């Protein structure tokens, strides 16, 4: 399939609009659902909330890419937020997997809250490091 540059741009623009809208609605729904769950919230739920929040913030660079000129400060903000939130999603999903694995091993020394705090700190540090680099 060969399309002109102009129609390719249009296709990609509308793909971006639809995907961003779906992503925003999905992550908003997840966030509300997690926040509505009565306390005390489990550690896994907190990790899912963290994923939902990073997905929610991920829609901001998508919106910027629709309206930004692709240069200067806006491009830097877009790139920074994109890298930060994409990495956070990957790290939080990995942390959820590690939590399931650790918990299924019935290790008495494993404390979920301690793991959660460490996971959030390490994820934020690594994602910020990659985004700032």
């Amino acid at each position, binding site marked *: *399939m060969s*399309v002109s540059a102009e129609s*390719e741009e249009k*296709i*990609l623009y509308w*793909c*971006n609009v*639809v*995907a*961003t809208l*779906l*992503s*925003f*609605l*999905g*992550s*908003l*729904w*997840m966030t509300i*659902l997690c926040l509505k*769950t009565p306390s005390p919230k*489990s550690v*896994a*739920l907190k990790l*899912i909330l963290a*994923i*939902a929040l990073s*997905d*929610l913030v991920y829609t901001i*660079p998508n919106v*910027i*890419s629709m309206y*930004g000129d*692709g*240069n200067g400060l*806006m*491009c*830097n903000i*877009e*790139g920074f937020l*994109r*890298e930060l939130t*994409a*990495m956070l*999603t*990957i*790290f939080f*999903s*990995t942390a*959820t*997997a*590690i939590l*399931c*694995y650790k*918990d*299924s*091993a*019935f290790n008495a020394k494993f404390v*979920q809250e301690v793991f959660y705090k460490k996971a959030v700190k390490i994820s934020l540090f690594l994602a910020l490091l990659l985004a700032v*680099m």
Partner: protein
Amino acid sequence: MSYQRQALFCWVGSTLSSPTVVHKIAILAVFEGIPLIAGLLISLVGYVIAIRNITGFAQMYLAGVGIQIYKLLWYPLVLAIIFLPSLVNNVLGFFVKDTPIQLKVLHLILTHSIGFANALVYGLQRPKPSAKPKQECEISMAEARSRSHSDISDEEHTGRRNNSITEDLIRAGTLTSAPNDLL
């Protein structure tokens, strides 16, 4: 390195006037490839071990209550589905001037709808409001009405107690963190 306009959006790019393919690959590896592939591998290994632990523990109980632990594999699967086309598109972009529009569309739609994909997975993970406990309750009440406590055999008592212990252990252990029990 700096954030600059790429084919689809602003992302990390080389500040060199004519960066080599190796330089571009190194940037892609550090800022997307290595974290993604490492995350996927850790998730897969973690889930395989977790699934083994859980199935070894209470296969019959899990089957009885309808918990499908293999659903846990959806998490790394979603990561792979969302980010791998973007990785392929970026790598291909180093070697060809213009990547196919289909791949660009796939890249854009998947990476930009990450929130939707995650919501879909977590939505599917949520336990549906089941009629089962109510039915059990109704049966128990009917049973209670129709027969006295002494009619229940010792074997039945032991079975019920074992089920309850299994349930408590699972709730205290694995399933407190399993998504089926979360939302």
